[in-house]
């Protein structure tokens, strides 16, 4: 079965500094990978996804993520953090070789960007 690990519960960065939120995954086949963001008292919003092709994926709000098959990782990055980026971030994986469409999520990483 597919699974996701987000090793950091909390990430703190200063505004203007680069940020990284880590994610590793496990699937029996090839993955589809996703990042979602959740603001307080809201549902999850889609940020970006890796399906195939270029390992560097660009998404909403200046975020990007790099797919690394050998390390089974899909870390989320942004060159210059904003205070408004403070939120809860979830990595998710789907196994493209499975017929079911269910997705598995990590436990989430709370990003705090300080002014």
């Amino acid at each position, binding site marked *: 079965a597919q699974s996701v690990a987000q090793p950091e519960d909390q990430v703190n960065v200063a505004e203007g500094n680069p940020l990284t939120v880590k994610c590793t995954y496990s699937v029996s086949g090839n993955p589809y990978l996703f990042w979602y963001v959740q603001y307080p008292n809201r549902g999850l919003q*889609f940020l970006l996804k890796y399906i195939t092709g270029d390992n560097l994926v660009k998404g909403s709000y200046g975020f990007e993520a790099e797919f690394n098959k050998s390390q089974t990782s899909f870390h989320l990055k942004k060159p210059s953090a904003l205070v408004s980026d403070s939120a809860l971030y979830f990595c998710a994986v789907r196994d493209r070789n499975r017929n079911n469409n*269910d997705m598995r*999520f990590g436990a989430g990483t709370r990003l705090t960007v300080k002014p």
Partner: protein
Amino acid sequence: DVKVTQSSRYLVKRTGEKVFLECVQDMDHENMFWYRQDPGLGLRLIYFSYDVKMKEKGDIPEGYSVSREKKERFSLILESASTNQTSMYLCASSPNWVARGYTFGSGTRLTVV
């Protein structure tokens, strides 16, 4: 834009009550999902459905059931609510193309007292 609507943002129910959480999507998606979200545990899949009247158990189905009588509506039922079911419940939908992500509702925060 696809919209997934959960009927209640906040609910307070008593232990032993039967609770219905409703979810409606307006983009003709085949697949619908119910997750619960708890701090430190992330999102855990309760049930999902890939067609009308079809349902599949997720990772934590105990104490829950679901109903999908129409394509646009997916209901989560707590047969006899317990305090350990206090949580944020998130509904999501997606089309059949596996490469597509999900669209989420805003969530229902359920408190069982």
